[in-house]
């Protein structure tokens, strides 16, 4: 029934798009045709615009959600529910004076915001938005056409490479501003992102080991067959998620732009569209992070067979998952307080790095044993290890930061007056 309905609804969409891509097929020997290239370019344009618009909407969502969580209203004047607020913001940004302070390194200062946005954007090149489908091409042959800009066989490696470049924008922006706060923000950003890139990369390693392919399409296909990777690799998924938070400099890891400490960190000296670009970069990075999390650990465009309804269903599922995690980003931001910088470093190097290493070792060992049941025991072991690690960390903190009431010189809650205390 659902299938029929979906076929009815999505089928209407299917035909024109399939036709479009059919027109843009590759030639019979697999080499690209002009039409195929045009098709890819169209896809690039589509994806880019979706992401940019999403980034703008995210600003609105952030403000609305935070307001909701704080019992306020948030922007609700421009357009229905304030939905046109991004447009208004854009206008404001574009018409504001673009102040370039006299003491900055002009070239770096200018290109830094661009460097922030571009790596985040181009990561989308390898993310599959929905399943592959066959089309009959103009020449009459059948081709596999995927909703993916580039189907790299080293997709995971590509993602790790490109996400690693995002740090340049922040670092250079902080440095080029030639201001103490900016520089501190830049230094913090580079140290933090290098630290968490390790955990990020190592969290992906077990996935690659299990799937034994670096191709994101293969990763999703494996998950469609064997269940989501988050069930097999809960620890890796967990750490990946937190590392993504740290990579995007979002609370609770927003050290590089901590308002209460560094005014605005690396973008203190920026204004107008350059400032907007930093913002855009951050929200694009969030989108990328969510998309990666979804692709690597949560089955991508699959949802327990629902995706078989049609390729459009895959896009919907994928979008829904990404949107959920984008919401989670906002949710976490307005829920969890900021870490201290040494805690951040300890978390990255002292907890996540060993945990991911152990995880890689365990996974590799389990794979080497080549027993089906081990792959199901592994998550349990890992969950247990998380709990143990958490317990140890808690114990450690408990020892280190004893409750205020036990500290010397603090009058216990029960002791009302000095007389009783001295008696």
């Amino acid at each position, binding site marked *: 029934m659902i299938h029929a309905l979906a076929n009815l609804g999505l089928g209407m969409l299917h035909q024109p798009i399939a036709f479009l891509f059919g027109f843009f097929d590759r030639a019979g020997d697999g080499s690209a045709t002009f039409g195929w290239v045009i098709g890819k370019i169209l896809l690039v344009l589509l994806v880019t615009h979706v992401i940019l618009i999403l980034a703008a909407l995210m600003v609105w969502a952030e403000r609305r959600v935070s307001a909701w969580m704080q019992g306020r209203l948030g922007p609700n004047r421009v357009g229905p529910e304030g939905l046109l607020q991004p447009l208004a913001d854009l206008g404001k940004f574009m018409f504001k004076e673009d102040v370039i302070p006299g003491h900055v390194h002009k070239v*770096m200062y200018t290109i830094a915001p661009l460097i922030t946005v571009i790596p985040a954007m181009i990561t989308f090149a390898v993310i599959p938005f929905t399943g592959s489908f066959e089309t009959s091409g103009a020449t009459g042959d059948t081709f596999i056409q995927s909703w993916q800009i580039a189907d790299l066989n080293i997709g995971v490696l590509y993602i790790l490479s490109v996400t690693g470049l995002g*740090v340049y924008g922040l670092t250079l922006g902080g440095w080029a501003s030639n201001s103490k706060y900016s520089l501190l923000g830049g230094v913090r950003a*580079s140290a933090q992102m290098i630290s968490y890139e390790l955990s990020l990369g190592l969290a992906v390693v077990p996935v690659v080991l299990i799937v034994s392919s670096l191709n994101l399409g293969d990763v999703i296909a494996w998950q469609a067959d064997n269940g989501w990777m988050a069930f097999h690799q809960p620890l890796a998924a967990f750490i990946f998620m937190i590392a993504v938070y740290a990579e995007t400099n979002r609370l609770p890891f927003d050290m590089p732009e901590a308002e209460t400490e560094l005014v605005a960190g690396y973008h203190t000296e920026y204004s107008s569209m350059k400032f907007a670009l930093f913002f855009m970069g951050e929200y694009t990075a969030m989108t990328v992070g969510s998309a990666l999390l979804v692709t690597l650990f949560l089955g991508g465009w699959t949802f327990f067979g629902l995706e078989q309804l049609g390729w459009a269903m895959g896009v919907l599922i994928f979008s829904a998952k990404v949107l959920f995690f984008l919401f989670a980003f906002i949710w976490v931001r307005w829920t969890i307080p900021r870490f201290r910088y040494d805690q951040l470093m300890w978390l990255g190097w002292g907890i996540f790095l060993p945990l991911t290493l152990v995880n890689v070792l365990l996974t590799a060992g389990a794979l080497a044993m080549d027993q089906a049941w081990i792959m199901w025991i592994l998550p349990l072991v890992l969950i247990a290890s998380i709990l143990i690690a958490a317990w140890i960390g808690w114990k450690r903190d408990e020892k280190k930061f004893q409750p205020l009431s036990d500290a010397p010189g603090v009058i216990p809650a029960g002791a009302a007056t000095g007389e009783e205390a001295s008696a």
Partner: protein
Amino acid sequence: MTTALFVIFGATALASALLAVTRKNPVASAMWLVMMFFGLAGGYVVLEAYFVAAVQVLVYAGAIMVLFLFVIMLLDLRSEHLMEEEAPRMPILGVAAAVLFLAVSGIALLNAVDDGMFPDAAARATLELDGSARAIGESLFGTWLLAFEVTSVLLLGAIFGAVILTKRRLT
């Protein structure tokens, strides 16, 4: 077309490298070097060494150069005598050495070309190589396993060295 791509990437890399070593500002140098890495990565792609290209970006641009930038910022060198570096004391000899090296090795290369040591266009058409991660992995963990292990020991040593060198108090 491929050759043109290679020339573009190679020229980018070469120009970036030259700019990197001639900039006064170390940050500018570092950024040009990043540019060079991208140029080389492009060159690797043209040479169908995809894995190497990805790792080139991942390791060099993503990690090593960020470390450089981090150190530059950590030292906050601008306030020191770095922005206004004096004229190098012996640049002529240094330039001469570099140019001589290029000239002599270039002559050697041309000699080798004359001697027909490199495959011509027809022979190159038969050069097939699987530069995928799987092929490299099989070679790395098969033929070169020992070297791989030794490299890991080297990295461990480097970690210890870096930690000990930068520790303020050795006691």
